[in-house]
């Protein structure tokens, strides 16, 4: 079975003032289609950097990274934009919704950049909001939504262009434990029912074990260990 994501010896160096900081120091791993992988580790271990690189928001300094068969290192900025638009969906700790736009408009946003018709966009955005359980929140602005609802909108938006993989960066970091559990259940549901591949960065080792098929441990820019999660493929 070919890997959906395949990283070989990824390095990432930052210039921070005059000092050079190595965020990734030779990371290699693979994720198969349909997997739910949790990436755990302390702050500053390079988890988010790795996620951003897979998401095409950042580029590796060296190494190879193939997502869905394409080599990201060989992509120019235009191709990276296309990668973000159609291959991956991302959600963040702070939701990153556009405050001035309604839930429906936020979900439709990626489809605007993908060039879909307005009617198609509205219909699909409404379906996605229904899918994440926000049937009654279509026309609400982010400020009128609870944290859990906002993250659901963000999940719906990440699914807008039918991505091959969902990248989740601490998706429950801003939520209370009850709401967090709901969001994690939603992610598990999407993984199970829609066979959506998920790579989730989290601090919460307990939930990670419960939901995922596999856990990757990171420390100081390298993957230090791998263990099986509570679920089986």
């Amino acid at each position, binding site marked *: 079975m070919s890997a959906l994501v395949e990283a070989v010896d990824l390095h990432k160096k930052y210039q921070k003032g005059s000092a050079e900081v190595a965020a990734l120091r030779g990371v290699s791993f693979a994720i198969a289609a349909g997997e739910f992988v949790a990436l755990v580790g302390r702050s500053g271990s390079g988890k988010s950097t790795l996620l*951003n690189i897979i*998401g095409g*928001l*950042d580029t590796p300094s060296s190494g190879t990274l193939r997502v869905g068969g394409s080599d990201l290192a060989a992509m120019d*900025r*235009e191709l990276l*934009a*296309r990668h*973000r*638009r*159609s291959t991956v969906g*991302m959600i*963040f700790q702070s939701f*990153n*919704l*556009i405050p*001035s736009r309604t839930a429906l408009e936020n979900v439709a*946003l*990626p489809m*605007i*950049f*993908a*060039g879909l018709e*307005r009617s198609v966009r509205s219909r699909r955005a409404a379906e996605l909001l229904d899918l994440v359980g926000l049937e009654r929140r279509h026309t609400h602005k982010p400020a009128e939504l609870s944290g859990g609802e906002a993250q659901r909108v963000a999940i719906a*938006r*990440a699914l*807008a*262009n039918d991505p091959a993989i969902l990248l989740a960066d601490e998706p429950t970091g801003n939520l209370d434990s009850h709401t967090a559990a709901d969001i994690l259940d939603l992610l598990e549901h999407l993984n199970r029912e829609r066979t959506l591949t998920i790579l989730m960065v989290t601090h919460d080792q307990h939930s990670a074990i419960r939901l995922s098929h596999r856990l990757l441990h990171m420390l100081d820019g390298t993957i230090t260990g791998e263990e099986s999660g509570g679920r089986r493929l």
Partner: protein
Amino acid sequence: MKSSDLFRFSLDNLRRTRLRTTLTTLGVIIGIGALVAMVSFGTGMQRNITEAFTANDLFTTLRVLPVRMDIEQMMAGNLDGAMSGMQKRTRALNDTAVALIAAFPEVAIVFPEVTFPVKIRFGGQEASTTLRSLPVAMGGFAPYDRMGWGSFFSSDSAAEAILSYGILARLKLTLAGAGERSPADTSRTWRSVEADSLIGAEMEVITSVLDLRRVMSGGLSADGQPPFAEHVTRLRVAGIRPKPHAFSNEQVQGGIVVPLQTGRKMPRFAFTSMWSMLNHGGRTDGTYDALYVRLKKLQDLPAVRRRLQELGFSVFALADQLEEIKRGFLMVDTALGAIGTIALIVAALGIINTMVMSILERTREIGVMKAVGASERQIKTIFFFEAGCIGLLGGILGVLLGWLVSRLANWIANLWTLRQGGGGEIEFFYLTPWLIAGSILFAVAVSLAAGYYPATRAARINPVEALRHD
């Protein structure tokens, strides 16, 4: 990304910062308004003058003068040199010269210019003005082919006169039913008359002549009176010229026209100026100050001018003057346009400022858009579009503002000229379709140029940093 979505997206963004968008657009409106008002004023003035020239057929008109004395040599005390230079090349402007020029196939009409200052007395009022003498044949040429009332002269020596429209006001006459507003100054004793009642009426033309008795009895200061006497010629009003074009000479000068021979025979002080005295020393030897030549075709002007110069005449074409005036107007237009452009550059800086501010505010939003798949080109286009919308809206409203300003200025200027007793309403501004389209395009172009840097900057925002941004 579809352009309709782009448009909606940009408009949404503009609407969200309504106050700032309004103020920025106002900058463009004022810039374009200034540009439009100023350039349309320049164009309007130029058009008025060109029309006045065309209406009076001045383009095909030449004045032939004797070769002038070399003033510089004369000033330097070298009178002999000046005179000899003159005698070598000069050809007298006499009836022989008239016949010579009349034989040119390109010439439609030629006659000596007999013009001098007179006083006229009519209906109990007196006015100082200029008398021009024209041959009866001139009745077939513009602008004399059209009379307002009455008719042209019956012969070259008839005791007749034609009044200009402008002189009527100086004689405190208004024509009933001529659509004229009554002057604001009612303290003067104006009379409203039927134009037809003036035709055939008698008028007096008063010229100054040297009073020989006074000269004999001791010259200028014998009794403190200058040695002049008045001579009165009685003429019948044959016609009245139509209301002149707003910018023609007659608007200012008025004046009367008499048949050529009638004018020539009128006794008068022999020279009308120091210039004519210097040129013919006051001789009455059958020479003229100038000849008036009208050509059949405008294209013949350079050739005729060259031949006349070769014959030893000095030639003055009014068309040259128009070229000079046009050059002047081009400079005025450029200066006015430059002022408008400066206003627009200030507006452009406003656009740059607004958009840079807006990018700072929307950094995180731009990061989000990039994260969900917006390409650099799409981000750039969105910001470009916003700048373009400001330019388009500012351009359209700016043209409107410019038009309103020009209407207001025109109204005020006309109030003022009417109070001065001038003729009809004058259109000072001329807004061409080209100016309208050009101004709007210019506004859009300037706004897009102003949007270039902010748009590029927005497109280059690093999404990772932008998403961390608060």
